[in-house]
């Protein structure tokens, strides 16, 4: 574990959404820390709370309880005005650039916007910086004069990244940044992100349901299920020696593009439980092939395993 002060530290984060007399238990006690320059992958299926956690870190959502400390500031209860001072150092890239980029602005202006808001650069210097950013993300200068509807998905995602790194953030939160892209474009974006990480020492929280993508880019992986982290560890620990039955199920369901590789599949039973009614005990128990009666009664916290920072929440391991 990195002994220096973490850049981000989330403690026991709980987020409930109430409405219509019902409560969605989106996050049920999540703790996570990210060291400066570290890239952490957050994986899990739809509804596991990945995106809610990302939004909580950016303070786009207010935690029901728990705390978020970023770069030495406890931002848990900060309001938008105060948060604005920190915005340059924590930025987000969203899944769909079509939904997150203003279609009425030219791509050059979109990249310039954060520079306008957060720096004191002159107009000329800003233009120079926009060109430098565009070349950094391999976006041709011709595109700077185009609108969103005149560019491809890959080009727009490059523009989103250029926009996000314009203020030289310490942490970049990426929510499924490559899942709408074709394979060859996805490969290019991942290559870009890993070189940005090397050069700028930027920390990343990479939210994805695609394990291959996370494997390609992250130092550490957190696996979420039903609003909890059920396993966390280094990339090699999670991919080579997964402990939690859910992690093992997920990994065994990954389809290799090499027809000679046949993985033995872990069976998975039924459907994920509803976040409206949390089961007592382990959230995965009802679908787990090795569950025993104790699993359904007693909740279990993440417990460290002997090897490094590998931790798992399962009484059977």
């Amino acid at each position, binding site marked *: 574990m990195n002994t220096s002060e973490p850049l981000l530290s989330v403690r026991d984060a709980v987020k409930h959404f109430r409405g219509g007399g019902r409560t969605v238990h989106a996050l049920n006690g999540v703790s996570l820390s990210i060291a400066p320059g570290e890239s952490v992958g957050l994986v899990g*299926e*739809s509804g596991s709370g990945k995106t809610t956690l990302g939004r909580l870190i950016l303070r786009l959502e207010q935690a029901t309880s728990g705390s978020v400390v970023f770069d030495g500031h406890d931002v848990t209860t900060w309001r938008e005005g105060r948060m604005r001072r920190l915005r340059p150092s924590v930025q987000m890239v969203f899944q769909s650039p079509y939904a997150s980029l203003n279609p009425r602005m030219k791509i050059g202006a979109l990249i310039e916007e954060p520079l306008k808001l957060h720096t004191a650069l002159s107009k000329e210097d800003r233009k120079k910086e926009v060109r430098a950013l565009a070349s950094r993300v*391999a976006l041709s200068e011709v595109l700077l004069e185009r609108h969103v509807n005149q560019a*491809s*998905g890959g080009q727009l995602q490059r523009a989103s990244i250029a926009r996000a790194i314009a203020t030289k953030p310490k942490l970049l939160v990426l929510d499924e940044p490559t899942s709408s892209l*074709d*394979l*060859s474009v*996805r*490969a*290019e974006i*991942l*290559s870009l*992100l*890993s*070189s940005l990480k090397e050069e700028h020492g930027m920390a990343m929280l990479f939210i994805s*349901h695609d*394990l*291959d*993508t996370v*494997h*390609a*880019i992250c130092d550490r992986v957190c696996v979420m299920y039903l609003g909890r982290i059920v396993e966390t560890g280094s990339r090699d620990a999670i991919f080579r020696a997964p402990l939690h039955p859910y992690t093992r*199920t*997920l990994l065994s*369901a*990954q*389809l*290799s*593009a*090499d*027809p*000679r*590789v*046949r993985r033995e*599949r872990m069976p*998975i039973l*039924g*459907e994920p439980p509803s976040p409206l009614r949390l089961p007592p005990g382990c959230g995965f128990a009802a679908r787990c092939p090795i569950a025993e009666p104790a699993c359904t009664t007693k909740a279990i916290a993440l417990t460290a395993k002997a090897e490094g920072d590998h931790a798992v929440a399962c009484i059977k391991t």
Partner: protein
Amino acid sequence: MTDILKVRGLRTHFISRNAVNEIRTARALNGVDLTLPPGRILGVVGETGAGKSLTVQTILGTLKAPAERVAGEVELMGQRLDTMSEAELNRHRGATIGLVVQSPVTSLDPRVRVGDQLVRLQRAHRDISRADARARAIDMLKRVGVPSPQDRMKTWPHELSGGMAQRVVIAMALINDPVLLIADEPTTGLDVTVQAQILDLIRDLVKGTDRGAIIVTHDLGVVAQYCEHVAVMYSGVVVEQGPVGEVFVAPRHPYTAALLAAADLAAAASGQRSLPPSTPPNLYDLPSGCLFAPRCPKVQPVCATEPPVKISQPAQVETRCHFA
């Protein structure tokens, strides 16, 4: 044994007029050949815009203007589909041919309960009593892994989760016992564990039977793990086709090789470039030679002038490349 499906030289164009009334033609399919033997799953792969879904629409005869099939033949169990009337085709769609599309939401009628949709679809194609159709519907829901199928018959489409809705769509596609199942991106957007369940289901339905299935996907893992045959598409052409164990292990076409290299994301992230970062050709102004030539790492002068013909390789592989 007769092939389930045989597609030869399919060409589909988008024909429109521009602002000054000149005719403009986008050549979206440029001679697609596909063969599907019984008991097999054929994977059709390629990137966005390669013409995968358009191929499906052309096979089914569901193209809408300005798209138009300008050449090519489609044979289902030796019977020509491309010369059939709309009424005849309608007897096949939903009966001998089952279709599963990416978004289950668009294939289910939101105003009709799940059970009623399954009953109606049967009664539209065969002489069957309501009670028998109901019994078969419940049985089919059970087969596709819908829990407590009896209760689900009364469910409205909007009450289903994504994975459950896709299972219902598959039940609809299979209820009339089709010879050919066409699944266009059947698991895109679903979680990996649900994806595995759906694909297992398709495999179980085809394996060892006289039925066949086509899975259209951009996910090479789906093809590698579930399909026996694969057709790789680029710009409306099948550039390589053959057994998955051959094509994915020893690709002969440079585009197939590049696509497979891009699937190795770990290598790609470390900066090993798989394809030159350029866009596929402009369909309004296609190059005269090989369509992949402008991006091909092994391009030679002849590639820019001569379109490559289909070459039969050993082990049932066919390629369209001068140097394969």
